[in-house]
């Protein structure tokens, strides 16, 4: 649990979902978007939902933001039932989605944000002042008098982010917030999330993403979701530990008398070997590389002492950690890329190349 959450232990859970299922009617068969989700997020946490497209992340956020009802089960936000205490939930949360194109193109950025401020009941002058503060905070001062329709994708998302903060939410739902943004704009949005959260203890973030690094950077805990189920929950470190119990270090030394075997017998050292990809290059280099597998990080001390005794100097030391993608592959048995490749193989491109038919022409997506 994050330390911010410690001071808020008397608060109800920021998110409490029990046995939540969500089924959409579709032809030829109903689609189960959520297949029994139990989720508990403490106040003050930054919690991530990581999963491929179609995993159920957005459905889960829509339930928590009162846009969808669960087919079964209960969901509460800070103790308020999303089905029956809808207005209470709406007063303390906000949501920003990636690729959001809401608002009115003819309005300027400042006007659009002010309009939304009125939906949260800000007095008119307060609204303008708050809008100006947020515009400055998200770095849109130069664009404040620009029409919304003329903003770039990154600028638009910054504006959406400002909209999401107008009501000073206690819980902020971010659904793929950096989708389609370039590296710089995505980093900027992530920084804003961190700054907003750090400003007041107890603020909670629920982030969905299929960008592993984003979840790793922003979230203290995360759930890996696939096909409507939570496969694992924990901190990024805990989840990585699941797929790699030992600590792996890559050592580069100026010399090593006796080769890697000299380290293999040390306490806590599971193995010490020359990297397999290093055999050809070793002859041209003046240094020695060793892949060191330790029972845990604490064994590194005895290795360093032993190297000193052998007269070796460490040129480089790098800890090798599994990524969240490794965790996902371990849990699901396939990577995100495989998911998208499968979609292509079945003739279902992620983005249609022609505009979709009018809504009425599509298969209905109704709850069972």
């Amino acid at each position, binding site marked *: 649990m994050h330390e911010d959450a410690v*001071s*808020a*232990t*008397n*608060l*109800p859970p920021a998110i409490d979902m029990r046995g939540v299922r969500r089924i959409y*009617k579709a032809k030829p068969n109903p689609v189960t978007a959520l297949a029994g989700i139990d989720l508990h997020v403490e*106040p*003050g946490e930054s919690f991530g939902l990581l999963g491929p497209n179609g995993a159920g992340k957005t459905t889960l956020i*829509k339930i928590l933001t*009162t*846009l*969808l009802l669960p087919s079964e089960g209960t969901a509460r936000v*800070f*103790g308020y039932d999303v089905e029956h*205490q*809808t*207005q*209470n*939930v*709406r*007063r*303390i949360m*906000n*949501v920003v989605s990636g690729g959001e*194109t*809401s*608002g*009115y193109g*003819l*309005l300027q950025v400042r*006007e659009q944000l*002010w*309009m*939304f*401020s*009125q*939906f*949260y*009941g800000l007095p*008119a002058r307060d609204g303008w002042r708050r809008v100006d*503060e*947020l515009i400055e905070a998200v770095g849109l001062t130069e664009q404040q008098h620009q029409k919304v329709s003329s903003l770039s994708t990154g600028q638009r998302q910054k504006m959406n982010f400002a909209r999401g*903060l107008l009501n*000073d939410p*206690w819980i902020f739902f971010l659904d793929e917030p950096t989708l389609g943004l370039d590296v710089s704009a995505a980093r900027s949005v992530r920084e804003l999330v961190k*700054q*907003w959260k750090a*400003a*007041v*203890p*107890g603020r909670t973030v629920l982030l969905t993403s299929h960008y592993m690094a984003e979840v790793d950077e922003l979230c203290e805990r995360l759930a890996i979701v696939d096909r409507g189920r939570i496969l694992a929950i924990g901190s990024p470190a805990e989840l990585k530990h699941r797929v790699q119990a030992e600590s792996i270090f890559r050592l580069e030394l100026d010399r090593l008398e006796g080769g890697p075997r000299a380290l293999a017998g040390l306490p806590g050292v599971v193995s010490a070997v020359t990297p397999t990809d290093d055999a050809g290059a070793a002859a041209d280099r003046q240094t020695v590389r060793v892949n060191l597998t330790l029972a845990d990080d604490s064994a590194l001390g005895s290795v360093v002492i032993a190297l000193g005794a052998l007269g070796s100097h460490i040129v480089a030391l790098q800890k090798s950690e599994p990524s969240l993608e490794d965790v996902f592959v371990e849990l699901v048995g396939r990577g995100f890329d495989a998911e998208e490749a499968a979609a292509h193989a079945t003739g279902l491109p992620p983005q249609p190349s022609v505009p*979709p038919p*009018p*809504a*009425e022409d599509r298969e*209905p*997506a*109704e*709850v069972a």
Partner: protein
Amino acid sequence: MAPAPDSVPGTTPVPATAPARAPSAAHSAFVYRPTADPMTAATWTQRRVLVTNLRALYGRAYPRLIGLRREPSWLFFEVLLPFLTTSAFVFVYRALQAPPEYIGFVVLGGAMTAFWLNVMWMMAAQLYWEKDQGNLDLYFTTPISLMSVLFGMAVGGLLSSCLRASIVLVVGSALYGVSFAIQDWFLLLAVFFLTLTALYGLGMVLASLFLLFGREAWHLSQAMQEPVYFVSGLNFPVGQLGMLGALAISLIPLAVGLDAMRQLAFSGSDAHTGTPSPGVEALMLVAMTVVFIGFARFMLKRLERMAREQGKLSVRGG
């Protein structure tokens, strides 16, 4: 809007260790109204609920008013073009040597066309369009009643249409020499106001129906436009239609309101045979207002429930 339950079962509000919200200058943009905890933030008085909904109404009307200033093309499409139709009827009546008040009937009808166009093509399609833009989902996530949004659209549309109607009325009256004979100013203004409330109440109902039935409702609206124009009597006294006119009067707020306004603005004319008196028509408009707004409120509540159950009404393209 029904008051939301405020109690949170199984919790003790405002714990001693609740996070203190002390805004610093560096974070002023990220801290607006400090509240001790989420439960305090979620507990609103009835007054705050009402004030927030009124502000939302104003907020939603705002883009309409901005659009009026920023997109002057409406002067051509919504004033000049309808005015040509009005002018055509003026020349027809003049050629037929109709009584002079008929010119006034046409000018008054031309002015009221602005409201009818606004209701049929802006108000009715608005929620459907908001859904398509991705706005409807955002409205649902805000702590306001969707009725405030609809009222905001109505007020914004009404104010902009008033400007258009005034231009047609003033220019038409001056250009074609219309002379009014008004005996009861108060009742005339009351009927005008009631016509607008009933008309925009109908617009709110249509907005819900359009969202529910989508393109089918749009096609129906297109198909019905000319017949409704006809039976509304925009360019002639609706009493001339006999039974059909009576039926139109009982169903279409514009037909009732326009007939009453013509009776009041051109008193003494014998063109109003077969229609109720202005007082009766005012009562009909009151009834229509109540029924339409009540039905719109019911429909919106139903729509929101359906949207949350089915997941397709609010979702863009869904």
